[in-house]
Each structure stands twice: as C-alpha cells, then as structure tokens.
C-alpha cells in the first residue's frame, strides 16, 4: 500500500510589509483566507491539530504564542504547538504538520507562520535581528545576520570568483518578480547599477542585497491525500519533506561556502519523491540575502559549486527561464516576516501548481521545491510539492 501523503487543500496569505495590523489580526486574516480558499469548504471543527511557526520577534508573546493562534483561528481546543527554528520556523512547522498526517495520526492540520517586526523601535529591532545567530562567538564579535552572510559571500567570492554582479542579478530578478505579486512588500523594479551603488551594510552586501524587515502571516490547511478530493478538485501533494541541521556558528562548520543543512534536507526530500531534480519546474529558495540564493542553487543540487553565479547571470532563474527561482519575489522583494517565510513559500507552491498565480504564473508548473533556512544555515527544510 502506498504511503499516505499530506496535501495542501487551502492557503491564505496576508500582504507582507509594514502593516498596521498586530500579530493576532495577521494570524486571523491568514487563517480566514485559508479556510475561504478551500473549494468545497472545511469546517474548523475538523482541524485536529495546529502548528505555529514564529520567532516571537520583539518579545510579543514570546512564551505560549500557540494559545493566541488557537484563539484567532477559532479551532476550539485542538492542540497547538509552536515551532521555533529561527527563519525556518514555518518550514519546520509545515514539516511537523506533514508528518502528523503521513503517520495517520491526524486527517486535517492547520499550519501558520507569523512575524510582526516593524512595530518596534529600530534599536530594539537590532537587538532581535541577531538573536538566532551564535551568541557567544559571532554576536560577541559584532555580527548580525547581514554580517554572517557577508562572511560567507566573501569566502564564496574568494573560492569561486563569484562577481558582485551575480549577487546584484539576484536582487534585480527577485524585485522584477515582486512587481507581479500583489502581496509583495516591494513593488518596484531595480537595476543592477542601483544594487551595486547602494550603501554598504556589511561588505560585500549592500542595502539592496538584504531582505527587508516585514510583517505578515500565512496559513496552510493540510489534509490526507485519501480525503483531499472531498475538499477540493486540485489538492497539491507534499511528496518530499526533508530537513537538516548544522552547527550554529560558521567557525564550526566544514565549509564556509556551503550549507550542509540544506544538502542533507534536499537529499532526504528527494529520497522517496516520485521525481528527481530534473522534474522540478521552479524553486522557492531562502534568499534572505542575495548570496543565499546562489548558495541555495548549489546546495540543492541545481548548480555545481560556484556555478550559480553564471546560471543567474544568464537568466536561467528568471520567470520564463529554464528554472524560475522565487517567482513570488522571494524574501528579498516579497518580504521576510521571519516565522512566516517558510509557509509563504508553500503558499506560492500551492497557487502556482493550481495555475492560480496570475501574472507570475510559471507556465505548466506541476512540481515545485521550497527551501527554508534557519539562521545562517543552522537548520533547513526542503519540501517537494506536486499537483495531484
């Protein structure tokens, strides 16, 4: 008998950006939208369990945020577990929901990713932007994430001759995609020259190499594949759910130019999948900084080490290219509400594979990969989706 699979039958996404709404309102909007999106409807009483991915940025309800989701989702007394793996919180929350369904323990599960970041004063934000990095060595050396990714970029440039233009090309492409996504924080095309001339944040990364600080929430409704068609005609199956971990600090890792957590997660995701890398039609990768998208292409196995720069510069990753990457604008242009990003990637897979992505539709897409990274690579998930 075939292994039971989880499917996505509904998904809701707030706008990402600087929003007036608080965290409770954001969760409520995303969950309501997710329930509305289920074609034949599903009663909230059928949700048996929920998983909430959030960092708890700025300290709002740092403990027990799950209870706030239980209230706002109006799912009665169904258990809710908060999952915290930094920027990969929702990727891991999704994986927990998928496993609950695959195991047969649950039939309907709600997964929510949330972060409210822009309501804190800037100094308070800077406290929080580094809390998921290594505290005792990297933070005490004066690093936040921009600095840590900049260190990796410098090593990648030294090892492979990666040109600054390749980093800039990632930002240019993702901003172009963002203009086609009504939920994206940035709706503005930028040029390579603007990226290269932007003020430096942590060399070699400039302001336009970095994702913004964002608010937003995303909700996904999962159901077993044996019952999915009673809820919708076009469920999207999760056919691979891999994850990996690594040391917290760069200094402890085998390589400064590869994320072992991503490589391990990809290997696990593909192990039992019905297709290999050649079957993947687009990627949603964790581009918190432009260098991260190049690392992702190489670690996921879609480019050789050092090969992602050329692939990007020749346009292969653009919408309409050989392998579109981040058609929704990515974290870079869509925004990066930390705990919501992994769920947002799954949302994009859901709407793309149902052919509902509008102006950014990847033509004929039936199979997708999403990739969510926690911290500077301390954790990662890789999830494979296929239209049923």
């Amino acid at each position, binding site marked *: 008998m075939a292994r039971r699979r989880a499917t996505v039958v509904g998904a809701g996404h707030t706008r990402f950006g600087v929003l007036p709404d608080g965290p409770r309102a954001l969760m409520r909007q995303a969950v309501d939208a997710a329930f509305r999106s289920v074609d034949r409807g599903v009663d909230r009483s059928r949700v048996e369990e929920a998983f909430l991915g959030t960092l708890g940025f700025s300290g709002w309800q740092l403990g027990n945020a799950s209870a706030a989701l239980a209230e706002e989702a109006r799912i009665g007394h169904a258990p809710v577990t908060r999952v915290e793996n930094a920027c990969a919180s929702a990727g891991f929350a999704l994986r927990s929901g998928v496993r609950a369904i695959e195991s047969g323990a649950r039939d309907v599960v709600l997964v929510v990713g949330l972060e409210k970041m822009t309501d804190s004063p800037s100094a308070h934000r800077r406290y929080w932007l580094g809390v998921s990095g290594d505290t005792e060595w990297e933070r005490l050396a004066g690093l936040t994430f921009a600095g840590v990714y900049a260190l990796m970029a410098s090593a990648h440039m030294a090892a492979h001759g990666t040109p600054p233009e390749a980093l800039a090309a990632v930002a240019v492409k993702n901003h172009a995609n963002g203009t086609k996504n009504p939920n994206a924080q940035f709706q503005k095309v930028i040029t390579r020259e603007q990226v290269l001339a932007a003020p430096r944040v942590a060399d070699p990364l400039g302001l336009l190499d970095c994702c913004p600080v964002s608010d937003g929430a995303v909700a996904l409704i999962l159901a077993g594949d044996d019952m999915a068609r009673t809820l919708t005609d076009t469920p999207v199956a999760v056919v691979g759910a891999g994850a990996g971990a690594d040391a917290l600090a760069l200094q402890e890792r085998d390589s*400064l130019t590869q994320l072992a957590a991503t490589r391990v997660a990809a290997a696990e995701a593909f192990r039992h999948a019905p297709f290999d890398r050649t079957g993947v039609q687009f990627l949603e990768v964790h581009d918190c900084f432009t260098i991260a998208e190049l690392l992702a292409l190489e670690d996921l196995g879609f480019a050789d080490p050092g090969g992602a720069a050329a692939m990007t510069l020749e346009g292969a990753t653009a919408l309409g290219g050989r392998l579109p990457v981040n058609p929704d604008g990515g974290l870079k242009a869509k925004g990066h509400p930390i705990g919501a990003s992994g769920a947002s990637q799954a949302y994009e897979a859901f709407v793309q594979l149902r052919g509902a992505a509008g102006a950014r539709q990847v033509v004929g897409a039936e199979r997708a990969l999403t990739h969510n990274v926690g911290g500077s690579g301390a954790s990662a998930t890789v999830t494979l989706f296929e239209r049923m």
Partner: protein
Amino acid sequence: MPVAVLHASVARPSGRLGPLAVEAPDEDVFTLAVAAAEALPPESRPVTRVDLVGEFPPESEWEILEALGTPEASVHRSPPGAAHLLETLRSHPDTPAAGVRLVLAGDVSALGPGNRLEHGALAVAFRLGDGPGLSFSSIASHATSPATPSARLRLPAAHGAEPTPLLLLGSEARVASAARDAGGLGYAPGIVPHAPPGTGPAPSTPTAVALRAAPPGEGGPIEFVLAALGADRDVYAYGRSTGRVAWSEALSSATVALAAPPVRDTPADLDLRAEGAYVPRPRYVENLPSRWRLLADHCGACGHRTFPSRGSCQACGSAEVAPEPLSRVGWIVEAVTTVRPGAQPTEFDRTVGLAGAYSVVVARSPEGPRATFQVAGPSGTVALGASVVPVLRRLYPMEGEWRYGRKAISGPNSSG
C-alpha cells in the same frame, strides 16, 4: 642564586593622538598588561605570584590569572607610580626555585585640565626568578623634588665597563627632565623610534628617549633597563642591571588615529544592557579559557582539536582530551566583512559611535580550528588570506562590567 629580572617587555596602546600613544576605545590597563605579559619570551616554569602595579579594574585579580592561565598564582596589588613599581621589583618574596613571578605595571593616558592629554598609556611586564638577569641590588630611588616625585638612578662609584643603554618611557616633559638628570651622570641622549618602521605613523616628537653611557672601560656586556610609567601621572623609574635581560615590545599594528582624548567610562556606560543575545556573567566566565587563552581540547584518540573547549572530542567523542591553547600568531583570514553603522548589534553601538565601521573575520588557527574575531582598529585593513594575531581587548559592557575577548590585528607576516 639571587632572584633577578629574567625578561621584560613593554606594551604600547594602538591609539595615536598627536605624538602620543594612547589607549584605543577597546584598550585599558588590563588589556595592556595582558599584552605586555604575552610579549614575554616563553617560559616553562609556572607563575607563582603576580604583582599588579597601577589602577587595575576591580575584577583584575582573577581576570589576570584567567588570561595568563596561571590559576595557582597569588595576586597582589600596589598603587600606581614608579616608586611603587621599583619597590615591588625590589621586594623579593620567596619565589620557589621551580616558579617565576610576574610584575605587571600599567597606566592609561593622563588627562590634565581642560581634558588636555599629559601623557600616553603604557604597560610593562617583568618576569622574575632564579637565573641570570637583572639584579636590583644597586637600585636606589630618589625624589627629584617633592612636587614631582620620581625614581632615579644613583650610579655606583665603579659602575660597569660597557655601553649601558637606558630606556626612558613616559611623558615628554618628564623624560626630558630625566635625561637632564642622567646627563649629569655621564649619559648622552639619543632617540628611540616611537614604533618600529612601517608599523605606524612616525610621531613628530619622540615619547621615548634612549640614553647611552659613555663606555668607561672594558668587561662583559651589561644592559640597563629603565622604565618610566606615567603611573603617578608623571614619573619615571630606572634601574641598573648586572646581567642581561631580554627586552621585548608588544606593538599593535592596527593603529587608530583618535580625534579626541580617550573616553573615560562613566557608570552609565557600564550599565548598558543587551536585551537579546544576552550573555549572563556565569556563561561569560565559563567560556573564558577558550575566549581569552584560546584553549582547545586536543584529542588523544584521534588527534582532532575541538575549539572552543568542550571537555570531549567533537570528532570522535573521546573524553581523553588534553586542554592546549591554540597559537596566538599565524591565524589566516578565511572570510571577512566590514559591518557598517546600523548593521551592528546594539551592544556595539558604542564601538560604532567611537570608531565607525568595524571589520569581522573568520580565521583559521595554525592548529586547524577557526574562530570569529572582530578586527581591532580601523575597518578594511585586513584582507582574505592575511595573517592575524588575536589580542585581548574590550568587547562591550554588560551587567556593569567590561566584557573582554580576543580581537584580531594584522599579524607579522601580513601584507595588509
């Protein structure tokens, strides 16, 4: 055998204000004293006693033992001043033949009326023990005047037979005064460069002056070591050797040009607290063997070095590990960035406010493990592949005290 000064060293701060070497924002008397002690040549005998001469911070007793890795030694304090330094050097407690004693003296820059700098900062380290070295049997101290107390050499009637170099360190005015005094005793003034060529800007006025005695006769080599501290804000001290002392200097190659006199801490400065990424004091203290002394676990089973030290091997899990410090020289930069204002964690707002952007590196030790270091001094001065040296500096204040750690400066073999 009489206890003698076996080795001596001086550490100058990396900040420059006009002609004076002054402490950079991340330096103080503690970091300078550690730098002076680390500049001493290797010594296999254990340290049994440490004397601190000067205004050391409150926690310095245990901190200095932690930094030096000499937990068994006793620590004694003396007030600042050359007279106290001489007194401390001359008082020979019973040092076991198997051990040595360290005398560390230091001072930060003195600010006079109107925040005007009167002299720069300095630290010296003396290693005392059995063996051939500098004996203090002929030292005398003498106050030149009640208003300007100082220590001064009184030459014996038949004082040696070789050229006798003296080194005066201290404020320009006081060194000039000392030179006049010594000139009356037959010494001729000369000039010692402020820093070795190529390691920093040449000051327009020397802050150190060497005096050399006219050779009065023949005999074995006799060196003279003389240290003048700005310790009681404007004094010097010197002494006469009956042997040879190895003298070394610890010089920072990351020179910081300061626009204003060194900042003095206020209680409010030390009250800064980080909200996120909090490091409670016990966690800070727990990591000091690795953070300060670069202690790694060397595995007896597989040879792997685990850094920071964890008490067992990260590669094979064996508990048969020997704690061994990694080298303090020859770290190679494998990744580098410059963190620009606005991208720093809030704990480093003060660093950015005083110095602007700073660089951070991941560097690999000669033994293999990597570490992450902020670069001390100006940003953008350390390149990929460069050799760096981890030196002890202030990081930031937390829980009312300065937290210290290693930062990187350009190493001796670095092209940058």
